[in-house]
């Protein structure tokens, strides 16, 4: 009895969480324009989507921004993580708190403050500012996924490489980087996903002519209900879900490896 109730409760929670998304996905295949009635199965909204120049251009911007910002944030974040890792204790905890701050502060605060900053330094809002904003909010996530890998490293490994004749850069690329690579890749995927996913910060930091998919959806929705939105949202949901699944799988595999290393 207790068990049955537990099951029921679980189903209820999942229904509550996923019903909206499920409705969205189902209606993206609806032949009728109405949101209430089922008019038969169709893929026409998907094909219309790929003929819409506005949507295609925002897809291009979304992917470009996600890829570029993730790449740059990965390089900058990995370098920052190594710096933080080698700091003295007090400075380290100070910088770590600074790192967490953007993660926990509301997107709208980050978005507006970045916009004000860009306007203040007279940067024209557009592709560059959008890219800078994405790099900014991505860096902490890269740091946070690389740092645990650095902590697992044998602290003498770098010295051992130097000792055997490696110059610092060679030692980093040949010895340290291969060891922390899983964390770096996870950081990259996470940054890419978050960049795809973002609406609020993009909304405040982009200019006319440059919009990401989420901004396009928002503006389409304001003009009136168009089932293309359902199709586009479904695609985004699936891509982000897939990426998150990959990131989670990697992180749990990493932590398993981590414990295995600790046990030796």
């Amino acid at each position, binding site marked *: 009895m207790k068990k049955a109730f537990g099951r029921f409760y679980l189903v209820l929670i999942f229904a509550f969480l996923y019903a909206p998304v499920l409705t969205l996905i189902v209606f993206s295949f609806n032949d009728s324009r109405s949101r209430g009635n089922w008019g038969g199965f169709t893929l026409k909204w998907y094909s219309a989507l790929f003929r819409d120049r506005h949507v295609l251009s925002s897809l291009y911007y979304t992917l470009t921004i996600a890829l570029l910002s993730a790449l740059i944030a990965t390089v900058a974040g990995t370098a920052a993580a190594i710096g933080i890792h080698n700091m003295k204790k007090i400075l380290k905890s100070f910088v770590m708190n600074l790192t967490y701050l953007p993660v926990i502060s509301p997107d709208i605060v980050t978005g507006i403050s970045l916009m004000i900053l860009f306007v203040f330094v007279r940067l024209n809002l557009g592709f560059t500012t959008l890219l800078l904003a994405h790099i900014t909010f991505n860096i902490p996530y890269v740091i946070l996924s690389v740092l645990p890998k650095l902590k697992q490293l*044998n602290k*003498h*490994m770098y*010295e*051992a*490489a*130097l*000792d*055997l*004749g*490696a*110059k610092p850069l*060679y030692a980093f690329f040949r*010895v340290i980087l*291969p*060891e922390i690579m899983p964390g770096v890749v996870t950081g990259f995927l996470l940054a890419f996903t978050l960049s795809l996913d973002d609406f609020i910060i993009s909304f405040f930091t982009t200019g006319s002519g440059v919009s990401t998919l989420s901004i396009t959806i928002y503006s389409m929705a304001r003009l009136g209900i168009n089932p293309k939105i359902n199709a586009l949202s479904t695609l985004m949901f699936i891509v982000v879900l897939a990426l998150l699944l990959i990131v989670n799988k990697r992180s749990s595999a990493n932590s398993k490896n981590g414990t*295995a*290393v600790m046990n*030796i």
Partner: protein
Amino acid sequence: MSKHIIELVDLVKDYDGTEALKGINLYIRQNEFITFLGPSGCGKTTTLRLIGGFEKPTSGKIIFEGVDITDMPPYKRKVNTVFQKYALFPHMNVFENIAFGLRIKKTDKKVISEKVSRMLKLVNLEGFEKRSVDSLSGGQQQRVAIARALVNEPEVLLLDEPLGALDLKLRKEMQLELKRMQQQLGITFIYVTHDQEEALTMSDTIVVMQNGTIQQIGTPEDIYNEPKNAFVADFIGESNIIDGVMLRDYRVRFAGHEFDCVDKGFGINEDVDVVIRPEDIRLVPRDESPLQGTVKSVIFKGVHYEMQVDDHNGYGWIVHSTSMEPENTDVGLQISPQDIQIMKKVSAI
């Protein structure tokens, strides 16, 4: 005697205001097996890291074959290091780990594989080339670390407590093996350990350190038989250390009695430390010695018994003997004059 390969001159190392090394002066001879011995925090590892180039001294100089290398980065120094927890490269197999240094020097491929297999033979790991380092036991990883350092044919090998993580039996085997390798290769080994037995077994020279200073330098026999002060005596094997007064040459007073001894050159009535090894005290019937006490505890240690005998002043003498006196027996403690070691008081340790 052979030439000095390394000289340390007034080496000082300061970590945020705490002095880890307080002016180390030392020379190391070519081909010797020298051990830095001391409790943790004594500065032995710091000294080794300065020689390896992983840290810079606050002041002082390091001379290598007559050249000042104080500011030379580690990758240019002709020394190699075996680290405490091996620090092998986990993403490379055994062969690649050992070949790492040779590849940097752009050694010919054939030469690399020859040298690596020669090294694997030296450390008894033939046929392990393709194994991943994670699949090896602690002892095997240790051997790979040694091979990885030695394949570069360093003039000096630095070893930072390399056997600390191994079990006792394996450690004893590796001690002998390291000694064999050192003699076979004829290179200088600088070894860091806190294990006095290990130091006594392997070394040509032992440097006893404490609080960032050198307490004594000497052969294992010197250090054991003629400890320079109470700290060294206590650290190298167990010792009874009590306060005494030097009455005149060859005559000392401690534990409420006067004894003959073989030391001289102290001031009249100078306060001294008297050090007596537990195996140098014989238990005799109580009337045969002026120094008497009561057996308080007996512990069987395998080769000998360890007994604590309290004298009338309340000092607990540690006595090692192959025969045992039961607890609460009143006994006499007999000590020969040559076994009484007199040491100057060390001020402010």
